[in-house]
């Protein structure tokens, strides 16, 4: 059993490292920077997408939305001209309920993992989404059908199935910390660190890997593809940061996490935003978030545009 003394001495060490704890994040950061009424903007992916598109932020194109049970029958009409697409719950989190269809032909849907589904099964999946199976708190949800992202060749060897994405923490409009999340066999194509995905901390100026972890422990190579993680370099780094910075003006949230994917043809795209981004990014980066937030609070200038803020980070971060 941990003694009280040890608790305090370890807490002190974490504080020295500038680690942001869950309680401090909720109390000092989220409750002070994120107004509750702004949450629906990011919790509903359809709203986020519409809002992003209105200020010319790139997102995967929306194919259609199914809001009610009786509309499920229209699904075939909606996807008629699409051979590949993604079905996801608008209020989902952590990749729950996301169905990736790699190929659709002759009424057979082939998923990312190669499983073949019939219409009935896809229909059932959409019904589950609508009844709120995957949504936060279990309330009724809508199903969003959007274009499949073709992730850039730059990450070809870094991810085992799934789509690698970049998570940028944006504090008061300034990108504060970033990591890349790479799916593994264990995470079953999902990009969540607690499910076994690899987290790679990224340098804020260059987008180069500085540290990598799997299950909280530092690693050097991808466990499934054996790619050297330290050679990872995110192309279009400025554009990635810019999407994050623009999300601040777009939502008004002082503390947010932007998930960005890099499409082969269309460049960096905003996948979703999060008003309560997790703290695992600190482990991936091997450093605490508190110091970065403090620096932004104390030294970074106010009143700059998104472009200017990104430039400031690229030059001073």
């Amino acid at each position, binding site marked *: 059993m*941990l003694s009280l003394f040890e*608790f305090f001495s*370890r*807490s*002190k*060490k*974490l*504080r*020295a*490292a500038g*680690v942001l*704890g*869950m*309680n*401090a994040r909720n*109390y*000092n950061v989220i409750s002070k920077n994120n107004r509750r009424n702004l949450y629906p903007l990011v919790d509903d992916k359809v709203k986020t997408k519409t809002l992003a598109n209105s200020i010319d932020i790139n997102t995967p194109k929306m194919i259609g939305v199914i809001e009610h049970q009786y509309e499920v029958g229209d699904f075939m009409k909606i996807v008629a001209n699409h051979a590949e697409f993604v079905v996801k719950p608008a209020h989902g989190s952590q990749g*729950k309920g996301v169905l990736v269809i790699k190929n659709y032909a002759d009424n057979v849907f082939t998923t990312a993992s190669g499983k073949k589904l019939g219409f009935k099964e896809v229909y*059932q999946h959409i*019904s*589950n989404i609508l*009844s*709120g*199976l995957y949504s936060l708190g*279990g309330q009724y949800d809508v199903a969003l059908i959007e274009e499949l992202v073709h992730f850039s060749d730059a990450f070809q060897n870094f991810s085992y199935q799934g789509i690698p994405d970049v998570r940028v923490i944006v504090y008061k409009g300034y990108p504060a910390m970033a990591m890349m999340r790479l799916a593994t066999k264990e995470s079953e194509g999902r990009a969540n660190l607690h*499910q076994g995905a690899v987290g790679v901390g990224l340098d804020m100026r260059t987008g180069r890997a500085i540290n990598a*972890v799997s299950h*909280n*422990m*530092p690693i050097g190579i991808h466990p499934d593809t054996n790619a050297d993680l330290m050679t990872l370099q995110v192309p279009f780094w400025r554009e990635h940061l810019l999407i994050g910075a623009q999300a601040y003006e777009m939502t008004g949230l002082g503390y947010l996490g932007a998930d960005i994917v890099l499409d082969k043809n269309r460049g960096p795209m905003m996948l979703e935003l999060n008003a309560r981004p997790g703290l695992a990014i*600190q*482990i991936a980066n*091997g*450093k*605490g978030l508190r110091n970065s937030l403090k620096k932004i609070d104390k030294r970074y200038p106010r009143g700059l545009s998104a472009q200017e803020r990104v430039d400031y980070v690229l030059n001073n971060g």
Partner: protein
Amino acid sequence: MKQFFTIRHILCLFLLAAVIFAGVATYYKIEYWGFSFKPHERTDVWTVDAHISFEPTGEPIEVSLSTPRIGDEYKILSEDAVAAGYEVEKDDKNHRMIMKSKALKEKQDVYYRIMLYDNEDTIGKVRDHKKPKVQEITYVDEQEKVMVKELWKLADKVEGSSSAEKIIKLLNQEVPEPEVDSFLPVHKNQKIMAEKIIYLLAAKKIPARIVRGVKLGEKRRAVPADLMLEVYEGSKWMIYNINTGTVGLPKDFVVFQRGGVSLLDVAGGTHSQVRFSVIKSVVSSFKMAGRRAKYENSHLFDYTIYNLPMHEQNTLKWLMIFPLGILLVVLMRNVIGISTMGTFTPMLVAMSLVKTGFFPGLICFGLIILLGLLIRTWLTKLNLLLVPRISAVVIFVILIMQILTIIGYQFDFKIAASAVFFPIIITAWIIERACITWEEEGAKNATKQIITTSIVAVVTYMVISSDYIRHIMFAFNEWNFVILIIVMLLGTYTGYRLTELKRFAPLMKDK
């Protein structure tokens, strides 16, 4: 300088105020209402009836009875007089109950009733410590003077720690000395004995007085007042048993009268006598608290939960333990950092365990969850929509509970019979969540979640199953204010959670 009055400062002030309030209220309840920290506290309550009877002489009647004092050996729960047609009056200064009436003809019976309970703090201590006057002894003749001297000579040979003890023992010897025999009258009673002892003590200039009262005991009916002797030694009155010389007030003796004043005065009546009856009853401390408050004219008690009907009290007793359970949940989540299935689920399961008993409850609950999971896995194949599916699970849980209860009753399985105490909806949600976690994050994560939830429930159970803690939370419910403020203060806790120390261990830096 930072903001002076932060939320935390204000809450700390509130906490201080709440602690002071709870402390004062607790003190008040213990001191004035007799509440105790111990559960199931019961107090012996003695009802003493003084039955006064006399024959009127045809003049206006005034009966005056000496009564026990408040704050003496016993505390008074209630006292009143039963005397139809009499004007009853309490003389608090002299501690007498006075009953007046116009002239009457027939034989009169009036009653004085007092309810007493132990006041263990003051037992054996006599408060009146003023030095009394010694009455000058007047000997009948020279012969008696010699006899007294002889008696004291004999008394000095008797074992005893004081003159009073020696002389009492001398006079009560089984085979009396010839001197004692000739000193005492042939027909002796308690009163004569007491008077003789006082007389002998006066010869040595030791003040002494008679004490009248009632020995408390079961089945004492219509007995005359018991006598004891009080002797002034050193600087205080010591009380002696007239027959044995034992010093100290017995635990079961209630003093009605002491010294020169009479026990009973009846003006306008003859052949007066007083007989005492004693009844013992055992009363719960909550019930007694109400009577005490009434006696002391405190209306505060009427507005407490202890004045409610028993059924409501039991419900509230159950509710009063919730704040403590909630505090535990907050500690587990925000300070330790354990995540469970549903915020208050472990607490509700723990509450059920209190009702069912630990092992039977745990086994039964495990059985319900297991059966529920099997059924839920089968439901998965049917591809039902969310709300109908969870509803089906709820109904299945109810059916499982029914079957277990019937089996438990028929075969006298205590374990199965406890099924009915578990919250149905909560149980159904545990099954549903476990199943979804199983499908999405694997069996390992699902089992892990069930186990952590159970551990938190068991820990909560450990705390709230204690009779002491439940009693204290009910009897001293003002501490719930303190818990409330602590919970609010924890809402401003921004330190690390215990589990985060491990989670972020790779980031730790030595200074």
